């Protein structure tokens, strides 16, 4: 082979390596935003589409390479799944149930302790209607800024029990609320309590990693 041919082969080989690496990187990134299966959609007698979303918030997830990180889990197909990318139907009423296991941390901005964007601007904590709360009490929030949804999640007051599934006292609160999705699109949701222990401002680590305290909602 001539020296020019050899040089061309080297350049082509280098390009191929770069293209494959880029494809792998993009594929891995796409996998972060791929949602799990969509919840079942029902239609009420008035014709309103409805869906249920069952979540859990844990003080430490207990598995993955970041076992001590705070995390959301979603229940799908009867089992808990580690994913924060969900599919919801458009123009539907979504009923959310959150099993909240984590302890109180408090909000950096007290304004975010008001329930907004839900039906009736209310959440129910163990059956009690709550419209706003002391900003030192939330463990996390469930917020979709594009929809104006902000739900502070009341924290477990007793720090004795670890905020995980299967703790001896199964200590958690059941928080329920409903909100309406708009048209199709890709939304982001996040927690606004700076709950990432050990990180500057509490906003690093799980707060900035999809799969823990934030994710995507695909409205279809």
């Amino acid at each position, binding site marked *: 082979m001539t020296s020019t041919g050899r040089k061309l082969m080297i350049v082509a080989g280098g390009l191929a390596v770069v293209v494959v690496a880029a494809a792998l990187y993009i594929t891995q990134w796409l996998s972060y935003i791929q949602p799990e299966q969509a919840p079942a959609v029902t239609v009420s007698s008035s014709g309103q589409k409805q869906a249920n979303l069952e979540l859990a918030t844990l003080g430490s997830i207990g598995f993955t390479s970041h076992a001590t990180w705070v995390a959301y889990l979603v229940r799908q197909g009867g089992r808990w799944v580690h994913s924060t990318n969900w599919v919801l139907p458009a123009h539907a009423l979504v009923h959310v149930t959150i099993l909240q296991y984590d302890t109180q941390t408090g909000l950096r901005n007290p304004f975010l302790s*008001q329930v907004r964007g839900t039906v009736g601007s209310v959440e129910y904590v163990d059956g009690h209607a709550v419209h706003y709360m002391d900003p030192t009490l939330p463990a996390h929030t469930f917020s979709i800024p*594009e929809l104006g949804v902000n739900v502070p999640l009341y924290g477990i007051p007793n720090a004795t029990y670890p905020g995980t599934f299967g703790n001896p006292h199964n200590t958690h609160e059941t928080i329920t609320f409903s909100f309406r999705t708009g048209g199709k699109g890709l939304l982001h949701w996040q927690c606004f309590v700076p709950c990432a222990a050990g990180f500057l*401002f509490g906003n690093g680590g799980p707060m900035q990693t999809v799969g823990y305290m934030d994710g995507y909602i695909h409205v279809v």
Partner: protein
Amino acid sequence: MSTRRHLIVPGLVWAVLSIAADLTLTHLNLPPGYATTTAAGQSVTGQVFSMISATVGIAVVVFAVYFLVVFRGRPGDAGDGPPVRGDVRLQSGWLVLSTVIVLFAAAYGSIELEGQVTPQLVVPASQYHSAATRHPLIVQVIGQQWQWTYRYPQYGGFESPVIRIPANRLVQFDVTSLDVIHGWWAYTLGIKVNAEPGVNNVGYVYALKPSRFIVECSSLCGLWHGYMRNTGAQDGEVLSQSAFASWVKGAQRYYGPEDKYLPKFALVYYPSPTTY
């Protein structure tokens, strides 16, 4: 062809093309638009500098193409070109012209910049001494990862996730952050102010008519920087003065229960802790 004709021919082409380009530019609706006096000033500045740039750019292209074509080497011509001599008039001319353009740009830019940071110059001349100018509406913009919220200290200090401002009244934005550096950018209002923790940065706007505007974050601030915007249902709005007054009443009722938990209004806040 005489030297004079080598200047007149491309000169005429340049003049015709420049006039056509500049006339076209005066009819274009350049961004950011005319929703506020600041935005209008920026749009006009964009037009003025585009016209200067177009004129200079066309001159460069026309003369370059003309000389490349007219003075190209012919096939078989291996001789030297004519001797090149300097021309004091030509050199003085383009030196003076360049200096005039640069000085004009510096003066224009300085005057425009002064007009955007001095509140009395943000309002139309007829409003210099009006009550709307002497008592601007103050809106505090608070950046946090990853949402903007707004406080209205003159109306009890309530906080809101959406921004509403009145038309025909000077608005002063006091911009700060609770965590990292953000950039508050209301594009069609013609204003961009850094939101920095522990710092109060101030900007002014005088909106001329009711409109909607998008707010974005212009400083990379973390994972959801791209979603840190008020858009769609959360659009910012310029309202008429009566509509703004109604909105304030409704917002005070809706967000009022939260007021007791908000810190006393201050230009900067130091929420704790900073590490966990």
